[in-house]
Every structure is written in structure tokens, then in C-alpha cells.
């Protein structure tokens, strides 16, 4: 096989993954629609039990959804999960092939980074299921990944080219990979925060929250756990980036645009952690900060990469 063949196989795998993600997205959306209508059906049923917080501790217990709801959501959500797993295997396969074709890690330009980062988001989503049922985020995760892969293949695509000297460093492997990990955790955390705000809005309007989706407090706790992990990765990214900058450009910090945005994101999430610890800022306010933080991550990756001038001109475009 020539390099060109491998590149083609890689793209075929990515396009197939996109097709299957689309199927997964449809299944998950159907599931969400059912959940919402189920919420209306059971509105008159007795309230779902939530263990009360006691003694200043947040003791949250798994909510048991009424049997009716469980039955409703079973098929489409399981189908969605199966599609997601298949799509993810294709996605990872395509990404790995791209790396093989290039003879290096597949995250050296925007196209490759998009493949890797979205594969990580989906990967984290799948792995977290073992520990916590987050399938209600399936539509968000597959929809987001689908859009991102679409943009990457049509707008960010570049042929395999060798690395310029400034990128020839093991820090490329570490720094960028950990940044993608951080992005994955922040992305899921932000998704949970969005759902949290929606649930809280329903509650505030006197509507019943969608009972097959956790309560806002539970969502907030889950989001927090994911985001702090993302924050640790992001902290590492920032530091590794500084060390690399010292090797490549001769200074560890120079307020280059990309450095500035990485810093801004870090500070926003530090703010989020503080908000969670500040009376009056828990709940919807801290959730908003998490969403703003992830919006800044996306801004940093798209707008800053493409339109801002700086030393990090590695989009390959």
C-alpha cells in the first residue's frame, strides 16, 4: 500500500463513521423526544425520590425512573449506543490510519487534531457510561462530532506533509494530546451543564423535570467531576506548552495569541471551580461559566487558529 492508499482508506473510514454517527444521532434524538413526552405522561405520577442533602453534605442517590419511562426509552437509546460504538471504531480506525500514513501522531494540524479530539470526546463519553449512565447526552455528543468531522473534512482538510522543524518535538505528542483530553472532558462537562440549565429552567417554571434525566443538582455534580479532570489536563497543557515554547522559541511565555487564549480558558475554569465553592454561585451561575469556558475552547480552536496572527500558525491551511 502506498501512502496515498492509506490516506484514502483513512478518509473512507471517517466518512463511514460520519454516516453511522448520523444514524446514532437520529436514534438519540428519538430517544430524547420520547423522554420529553414521557415526562408529560408521568407528570401526575408520584415524585421521584431524591435523597435529601443532610448535614452540609451533598448525598445524592441514583434516581429510579418509573417503569413506564424506562420501557419507553429502551430501544432507540440502545440502538443509538450501538451505532455510536460502531461509528467510534471507524472513527478511531480512520484517525490511526491517518497517523500511519503520515508516519507520526495524527494531531499535527487542524484536520488531524479535529479527528483526534472528537474521537476522544466520544471515547470519554463511552467510557464514562461504565460508571454513570450519561446516554441522554448521546444526541449532543454524536451531533457535535458529526458537525466537527464535517467541517474538518470539508474545510480543514490538508494532505499529509512532513512536520516543520518547530513541530518536531515530543512535546507535540504530549502537549497536543493532553489538550485534546482536556477538551473532551470540558465538552462533556459543558453538555451536562446545558442539560442542567434546561432542567433547572423547567423546575423554575413549575414544570416537572424530565424524570429520565437526572435532577439539576446531580447533573451539576457530574459536570463538576468531569470538568475538574479536564482542568487538570488543561493545567498540564498550559505548562507543557510553556516548556515547549521555551525549547522552540526561546521563552516560556510571550503572550502569543494562542498562549493568551489557553490562559483565558484556564482562568475561566478556575473561576468555575471557585464558583462551585462560593455561596450564591452554585447551580445555574457556575453552569453558565462551564459553558462559557467550553465556548472559549471552541473559539480558541477555530477562530483563533484561523484568523488570529501568532506563532502558532500550524493549522496547515
Amino acid at each position: 500500500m502506498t501512502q496515498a492508499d492509506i490516506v484514502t482508506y483513512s478518509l473512507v473510514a471517517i466518512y463511514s463513521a460520519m454516516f453511522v454517527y448520523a444514524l446514532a444521532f437520529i436514534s438519540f434524538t428519538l430517544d430524547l423526544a420520547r423522554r420529553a413526552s414521557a415526562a408529560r405522561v408521568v407528570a401526575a405520577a408520584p415524585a421521584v425520590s431524591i435523597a435529601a442533602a443532610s448535614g452540609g453534605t451533598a448525598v445524592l442517590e441514583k434516581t429510579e425512573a418509573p417503569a413506564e419511562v424506562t420501557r419507553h426509552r429502551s430501544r432507540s437509546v440502545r440502538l443509538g449506543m450501538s451505532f455510536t460504538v460502531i461509528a467510534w471504531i471507524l472513527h478511531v480506525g480512520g484517525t490511526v490510519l491517518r497517523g500511519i500514513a503520515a508516519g507520526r501522531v495524527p494531531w499535527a494540524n487542524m484536520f488531524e487534531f479535529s479527528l483526534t479530539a472528537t474521537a476522544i470526546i466520544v471515547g470519554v463519553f463511552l467510557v464514562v457510561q461504565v460508571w454513570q449512565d450519561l446516554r441522554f447526552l448521546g444526541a449532543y455528543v454524536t451531533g457535535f462530532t458529526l458537525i466537527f468531522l464535517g467541517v474538518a473534512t470539508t474545510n480543514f482538510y490538508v494532505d499529509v506533509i512532513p512536520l516543520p522543524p518547530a513541530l518536531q518535538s515530543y512535546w507535540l505528542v504530549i502537549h497536543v494530546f493532553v489538550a485534546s483530553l482536556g477538551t473532551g472532558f470540558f465538552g462533556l462537562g459543558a453538555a451536562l451543564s446545558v442539560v442542567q440549565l434546561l432542567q433547572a429552567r423547567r423546575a423554575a417554571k413549575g414544570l416537572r423535570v424530565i424524570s429520565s434525566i437526572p435532577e439539576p443538582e446531580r447533573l451539576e455534580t457530574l459536570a463538576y467531576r468531569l470538568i475538574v479532570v479536564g482542568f487538570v489536563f488543561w493545567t498540564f497543557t498550559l505548562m507543557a506548552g510553556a516548556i515547549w515554547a521555551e525549547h522552540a522559541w526561546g521563552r516560556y511565555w510571550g503572550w502569543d495569541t494562542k498562549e493568551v487564549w489557553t490562559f483565558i480558558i484556564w482562568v475561566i475554569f478556575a473561576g468555575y471551580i471557585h464558583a462551585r465553592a462560593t455561596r450564591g454561585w452554585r447551580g445555574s451561575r457556575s453552569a453558565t461559566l462551564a459553558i462559557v469556558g467550553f465556548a472559549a475552547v471552541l473559539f480558541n480552536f477555530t477562530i483563533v487558529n484561523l484568523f488570529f496572527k501568532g506563532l502558532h500558525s500550524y493549522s496547515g491551511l
Partner: protein
Amino acid sequence: MASSRSSDSSASEQSATDPRRPSDHFDTPAPQAPEPGIVQPKLGFVGMARFFWRQLTSMRTALLLLLLVAFAAVPGSLVPQVTSDPNGVIQYKAANPEWSKVLDFLGVFNTYTSVWFSAIYLLLFISLVGCIIPRTKHHFDALRAAPPKTPVRLDRLAGFRSSEDAEASNVDVEAGLGAAREQLRKAGYRVRVFPGESVSAERGYLRETGNLIFHMALVGILAAVGFGGGFIYTGQKVVVVGQSFANTLSDYDSISPGRWFDPDSLSPYSLKLTKFNAVYESKNVNAYGEAIDYTAYVRTSVPGQKPQNQTIKVNSPLTLGNTDIYLLGNGYAPVITVRDPAGKIVFSQPEPFLAQDANLTSDGVVKIPFGLSKQVALSGFFYPTKCTICGSNLSSVHPDLLDPVLTLQVFTGNLGLDNGTAVNAFALNRDNLTQLNGFGTKKPGITLTPGQTTKLPNGLGTVSFDKVVRYASLDIHHDPTQLWVLAFAILVFLGLITGLFVPRRRVWIKAVRTTRGVHFEYAGLARGEDPRLDDAVTEIAKKHSQRTGLTIKP
């Protein structure tokens, strides 16, 4: 001792014994009624100062200042900065003259050293210090204090478990509590026994330690950058292959020293650029001609040591003396020889030309103030691989030396070198010069390939393009803050992980006597985020029941 207080009041008593967090930390009990002193108008100076201090060191202020820092950092990424992109600033100002005046006034071109940005982060750090000090003190006290009393009722706490009742005569409560003590000690808890009643245990003091180390190390980074910054210096030097650089003030092309820079601190060394190697992609058609490797080969001499051959590459700087030497650029230096009409050499040396594009189209200037009948300047372009199909406009199509050509225009007049002001070696001020040939004059410009010689116009003499050599542009830094910042950064990271992920929890094991007999109860309390608390209490109950022989109720 089991008191008759409700579990609510014992919870607030517990917080009171906790390391102090700012008063609006979510864990701190809400103040009951506003202190009368605070709402009274007559605060007095000390009262005012204390009020402001308390405001500044509250969680809410820290949060707002953090968000403000994030927000304030944005403009500097939208507008070019003097420090990172000086040419960008010049272009921006030329393109937006009016708007630039406003930005200049606000210091936006120097955002990160501006008064307002500095004010925000200094306030944040003052707030931080004001936060750290009392918390550290309280944490020291907490580290020496015994775990708190056991709450009266455990059944409302996290992970509550209980064993089956057993005949009082069959249960040795003291032995059970002793086993509990031993077991919890082994599991890393600090344990306090209330004889005959219960065991109270706490673990995870490291969480607060980590959190404090994290915040202190942030202050450390700022301090290292702030104080150490004065000792930093950064110099640039263009070295042509075959030439040397000695680490003395006069040998730098430019140097920007910190406030406390001492020229005597330059470590004595020299290096000679023996060879420069550039590798360009030659197979992959998508990247044909792209640079894939630069290597500068240098021979270094440090007093008292044997000269050594070393290399400098883009991602691997060379450490020499107390400096690091980085390879940040490279280019071509045509070797140009100028002779007077009698054939006497008046100028002969490689002249570094600055690269303009990826294919290393380069421009440069040769200034000859003496030796010829007039002051002469040659200004021109060098193309490493001339484009043969591009018509009359020359351009370079490959960065390697495949078909090199040099073009020159000749100027005479006053070069402005003798009035003592600094001039840019790469630029020509044409105000007092007359152009003799090339674009805009009647005579054609000079075009030379290596080895060629031609006459200068007006009988000034001749110019030869002997050959072309590479040069490397080196950045030479001395930065004593680096190691400190790295050390503090590592502390930040370690502190962060321990502060976030070490669970801080309290666990109680209590012997309860009822009319039906005796049983043990188990429960925990999270101090901060603790996802595994429930499992942990269950685990403890299971293990303890094996020691006591009692069964845990399902």
C-alpha cells in the same frame, strides 16, 4: 461524648473547627444576623480597612477578579502586541491611525504590562495572599487537633450502615471499638476514641494541604517572574558560516537587558558557526521544498575547557555558560567584493540578507562609506532558485541553492553613518541618496550569478558576487527565573491534583445500646467533593463486622 445536641448544631460546630475558608465559602455557615458594627455608618479608619480587607479576601471577590483577568486578557489577543509582534503594531497603526490613538492611550498595544491589567492581577494576588495566610494558620491547627465529636444520630449521614443487634453479653464493645480504631488507623485515618461509645476518625488533611500549596505556588510563580525578570537578558546575533560570536556586550547585534542586568555577568565563551545544514522535502509533492530540518554546527570554546563541536536545532537549544542559545532563523549571505577602479579591494565579506518568504527571496544592503570616490550603497535581492518561467519579475521558487541569482541597485550620496545615530544595517535611508541604476533610472540594474563580476555605474569600480554562504540567527537568553518558575509550576500541579482528588472525609463507628441489645453504626461525612464516600463507609462496615463477628444489615 454523646451530647444531646441535634446533628444540625453539631455540623455547624464541626465547620467551626475546620480550617477557615472565606466567609462566603459554601461550606461556611451563613452569618446569622448582620453584625451591628458593620451597618453603622461610623466605621472609623480601622473598621473601614477591615471591612475592605474582608471584602477583598472573600470568595466572591476572588471569583470576580478571576473572571475579570480572563476578560481583560482578551483585547491583547485581538490587537498586535509590542512585545510579541512589533511589526504588527506598526502595520496596525498605519492602517487604523485614529483608533490606534485610543488604543495607545489605553495601553492596549502593551496589554499585559498595562496599568489596568497589572492592577487586576495584583489585586487578585493580594486577595489570594489574604486568603492563604489565615487558612494556613487554621490548617496547622487542624493538623494537630483531634477529630470532632461523634454526632448523636448517624442515620442521617452519608453511607449509613448498621449491624444486627446482638445480646449485650455477647458483645465486647471495648474490643469492637479497639478493632475499629486499629482498622481506621491502618486506613490512614486520624482516630479519636470515646471509650465505651464510639470512634471518630478523619482523613484527607492532604486535600487542604494540596489546595494551600497550589495557591502558594501561584504566588511563587508571580514572585519568580516579578523579581527574577530583572535579571533576564535576551540578545540576538546573526552568525555567518565561518564567523564567530563572543559573548560580550559589543558582539551582540541587539540586546534587551532586564532592569538589574550587569554586563559583567555575561559568561565568557565564544562559538564559531562551522556549518549550517538545511534539509528540504524533495519527495512529497504536497510539501515539495518545505523545510524539514535545520542544523547549526558550532564549535564552542569556554575558558578552561577544550573546544567542543556541538549542534543547535530548532527544538533543541544549546546551553553554554549561563545562557541558552536558540536557533530562531537562518538565511543566505552573498559574499560580495567591491573594488575601486584601480582594482583595490574596498569591501569583501558575506552580507546577511533577510528572508522575505518561504522560498527565501531575501533582501539586503551593502554600505561602503570609504574607499570609493563617493559613499556607495548597494541594495538588492537574492534568489536562491530563480524562477525561469516567471517573466521579467524575478522570484524564488525553492529555498535551496539550485539556481542562485543576485540583483543590485547602486546608490551614492550621504549614507548617514557618520553622525553617530544608530542605523539599521538591513535598511537603507534613501533621503540623501541618488539612485544610479535599476528600476526608475535609465540604466539597468546589476544581475549576478556566483563567480561573476561586473562594473559599477559611473566608473565607481567593480562588484563581484563570489559565492553565497548560510547564516544562522541566534537568540541568546539568560533567564534565571526559568528553574524557579518550573519548580513552582510543578508544585501547582501536584497541589492541584491532591487538592482536587484526595477525599477528605470523616467516619464514625458507634456502639449503640438498645433494648434489643447492642449493635454498631457506621456513617461518614464528606468535606468537599467525595464521590466514593458511600462505598468507603460500606467497606469499613464490612471489614469491621468481620472483626466483631456481627452481620451488617442489608
